[in-house]
């Protein structure tokens, strides 16, 4: 019996109907196609009445196939399948013709667009004719979340999930959580001290019983799928036993290797070889930097196991823990596998700290030309100068300070076209912090545009100008050079049409927020997508802003793109709520788009010839070998079988199989050939 198919053509207001003759499309769908028993057009198919229309007609007309000719299936395939389901139809008999993205929006000529639309509807009608009923696959959910990255985004997300009663594993690759926010002095737009609002959150996280924290650790691999990930974590050798260590600080006080540039202080201060990154670190237990530790250096040179080295060992000697010391030079990387239901990626950003590409600004060779984060450390009460704005070269208070915005951002010639979104605001903040500390000093800011479009943001930067007296000059700086102990800054003020030359004591570059150096590799490990600037991609910028392209993996914070703390925290909360929604169910329904190897009655059993090419190509190891046995237990033949839980529905196996024994549900050969055959060729 032939299917009774209904075709619903959407106007999308006028988005479609302006350049596609929707009435004609509906009419043609019926013509020469007796299988199509009902057609109509409607203004907004996705609206409530539109969906009701679909439900009603399925029932009234007794339809067993539906084509909605509307927008991209990425928008509303789900909507319409759901509607059909409510009307008692198997949802996989609904197909979408993409008239909006593929015709009306891209082909302005109405006859052309209409003709193509007619084709697209026919293709989907024919596919629908071959559609089979499919039932969602149910998979159990591991009720445990993984949060990767312990900046403010990760911390917020982890706390939200843990507070709702679910287990969280947090993996942070540095020795402490905190990320960039821990480095900031005071934060816009309220100028509250970053440590004061950050530290309590870090402590809360450490004390939360639902959260298991792995610092100095990285993700080795992620396998499995939504609800059932297997995550392998590499615990890098810390050389300190976290269970034994009490954080008494004796070791780092005696360590003789003291002149190592502190990463936390953006190289403006020093640290020891055994160290905690900053006083409020969580956990407040040290790590040995093996590259700089004298003992490890010696061991490397002599090519002996570290424990055999006799050099230094001061930290071990002083460690009060007994009988076994908390320090262990022989520690090695450890691997742990955790079962995980959902993942939040919160790996943050990297400040453009290598300014060597800016030869015109000294290419990184002037000590007193610093980056935004370096300024944060200078201004921070816990920083290397205890909050005094001293210039790095000689400790002098800068009387004239110049800020340059958009360094490394909005500069395609240097390989970066986007706006970093935070630097207009943090530069305004810097001028204020500077004025609060150097009362007689003067701050000049070179800018191209001021982009302060948040709540109370405009008011904030105007305060910098009107109350704190910062002078804003509209123009990019072309050159910085040294003259005696001054830095001559050559800029422009395009508003007066003049060149501006300032003899400054210090220059701060508002350098760009970039994706992490390893972002690309990391994304590939997780099979998530990223944009040209290596920031991770959400599925839809407006409607799915925290969902990555891989089911069950969500994005939070600056790993997705430049943003400030308020936006980061909001996004982290959103990601957490998505994870909670997933973890609240015992079972998840998965799209039944999976492969299946045929099974036939004896004596054939299956057309599969057991070559297992499919097994070789399957990226998910979803194909197993199955013995078909006779009653007496002897093996008649060994054939392939797909594990539905693991199969992700890529179709590689089906395309590879020579005996055509595997098919991919929803995209089987019949369906694809139906589409090909239905195209009207001239």
């Amino acid at each position, binding site marked *: *019996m*032939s*299917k009774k198919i209904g075709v619903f053509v959407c106007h999308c207001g006028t988005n479609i109907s302006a350049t596609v003759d929707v009435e004609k499309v509906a009419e043609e769908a019926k013509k020469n*196609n007796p*299988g199509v028993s009902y057609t109509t057009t409607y203004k907004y198919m996705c609206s409530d009445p539109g969906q009701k229309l679909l439900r009603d007609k399925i029932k009234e007309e007794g339809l067993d*196939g539906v084509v909605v000719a509307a927008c*991209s299936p*990425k928008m509303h395939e789900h909507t319409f399948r759901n509607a059909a389901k409510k009307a008692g139809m198997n949802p996989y008999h609904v197909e979408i013709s*993409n008239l*909006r*993205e*593929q*015709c009306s*929006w*891209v*082909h*302005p*000529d109405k006859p*052309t667009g209409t*003709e*193509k639309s007619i*084709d697209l509807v*026919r*293709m989907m009608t*024919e596919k629908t*004719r*071959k*559609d089979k009923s499919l039932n969602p696959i149910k998979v159990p959910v591991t009720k445990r979340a993984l949060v990767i990255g312990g900046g403010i985004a990760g911390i917020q997300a982890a706390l939200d999930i843990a507070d709702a009663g679910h287990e969280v594993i947090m993996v942070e690759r540095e020795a402490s959580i905190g990320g960039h926010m821990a480095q900031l002095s005071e934060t816009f737009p309220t100028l509250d001290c970053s440590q004061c609002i950050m530290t309590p959150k870090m402590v809360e996280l450490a004390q939360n019983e639902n959260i298991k924290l792995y610092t100095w650790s990285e993700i080795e691999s992620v396998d499995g799928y939504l609800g059932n990930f297997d995550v392998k974590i590499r615990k890098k050798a810390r050389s300190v036993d976290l269970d034994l260590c009490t954080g008494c600080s004796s070791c780092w006080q005696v360590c003789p290797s003291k002149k190592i540039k502190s990463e936390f202080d953006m190289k403006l201060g020093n640290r020891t070889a055994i160290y905690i990154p900053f006083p409020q670190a969580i956990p407040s237990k040290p790590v040995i930097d093996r590259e700089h530790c004298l003992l490890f250096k010696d061991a490397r040179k002599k090519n002996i196991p570290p424990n055999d080295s006799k050099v230094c060992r001061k930290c071990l000697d002083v460690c009060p823990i007994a009988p076994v010391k908390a320090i262990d030079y022989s520690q090695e990387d450890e691997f742990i596998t955790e079962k995980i239901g959902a993942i939040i990626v919160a790996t943050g950003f990297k400040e453009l700290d290598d300014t060597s590409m800016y030869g015109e600004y000294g290419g990184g060779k002037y000590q007193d030309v610093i980056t935004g984060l370096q300024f944060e450390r200078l201004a921070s009460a816990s920083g290397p100068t205890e909050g005094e704005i001293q210039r790095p070269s000689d400790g002098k208070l800068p009387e004239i300070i110049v800020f340059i915005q958009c360094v490394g951002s909005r500069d395609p010639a240097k390989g970066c076209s986007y706006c970093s979104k935070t630097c207009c605001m943090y530069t305004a903040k810097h001028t204020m912090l500077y004025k609060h500390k150097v009362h007689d000093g003067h701050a000049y800011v070179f800018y191209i545009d001021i982009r302060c479009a948040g709540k109370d943001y405009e008011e904030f930067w105007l305060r910098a100008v009107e109350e704190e007296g910062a002078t804003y000059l509209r123009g990019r700086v072309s050159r910085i050079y040294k003259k005696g102990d001054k830095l001559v800054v050559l800029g422009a003020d395009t508003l007066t049409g003049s060149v501006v030359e300032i003899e400054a004591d210090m220059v701060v570059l508002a350098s760009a927020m970039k994706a992490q150096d390893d972002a*690309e590799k990391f994304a*590939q490990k997780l*099979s998530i*997508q990223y*944009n*040209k600037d290596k920031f991770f*991609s959400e599925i839809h910028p407006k409607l799915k802003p925290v969902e990555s*392209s*891989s089911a069950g993996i969500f994005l939070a914070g600056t790993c997705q793109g430049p943003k400030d703390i308020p936006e980061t925290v909001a996004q982290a909360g959103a990601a957490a709520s998505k994870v909670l929604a997933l973890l609240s169910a015992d079972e998840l329904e998965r799209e039944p*788009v999976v492969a299946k190897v045929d099974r036939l009655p004896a004596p054939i059993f299956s057309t599969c010839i057991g070559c297992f090419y499919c097994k070789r*190509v399957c*990226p*998910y190891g979803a194909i197993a070998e199955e013995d078909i046995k006779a009653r007496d237990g002897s093996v008649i033949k060994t054939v392939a079988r797909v594990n539905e839980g693991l199969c*992700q529905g*890529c*179709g*590689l196996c*089906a*395309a*590879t199989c020579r005996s055509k024994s595997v098919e*991919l549900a929803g*995209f089987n050969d019949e369906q*694809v*050939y139906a*589409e*090909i*055959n*239905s*195209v*009207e*060729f*001239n």
Partner: protein
Amino acid sequence: MSETKFEPKIIAFLCNWCTYAGADLAGTGRKQYQANVRIIKLPCTGGIDPLFLIKAFERGADGILVSGCHPGDCHYNSGNYHARRRWNVFRPLLEFCGINPNRIQFSWISAAEGGKWVETINSIVDTVRALGPFEGYHKLNTIGPETSGEVAAAPSETG
């Protein structure tokens, strides 16, 4: 389309994650391009059976585009890599069948590359238009799988 001017028909096999989304993006960005392409969406370019392409030619397509994610970006890790390998094997076969390889293009277009989609379509349409209609398809009848060209117009086919 008018009788006088040759307008090629091109079938595009796209992966769901990258290029289909890239084509959507071209739409969202209202980027205009030539209307000669009919898209068939599959989960992954790795799932394209070479016989699909033969079938399309046999049915009268003048050109074919196969487009998926960039290397390393495949939603299924390695699908596009397999697609490329399969294509390498398949190419000589095409030439053997007398199909000008310029009638088939392979490309990588990500979900972010609406502009590249437009360029690719315009370029393949122009190329194929210059090559003229593909008339070798009747020779292919012996090669393709056994689906008759009449299916589209045969509504009695059971579902």
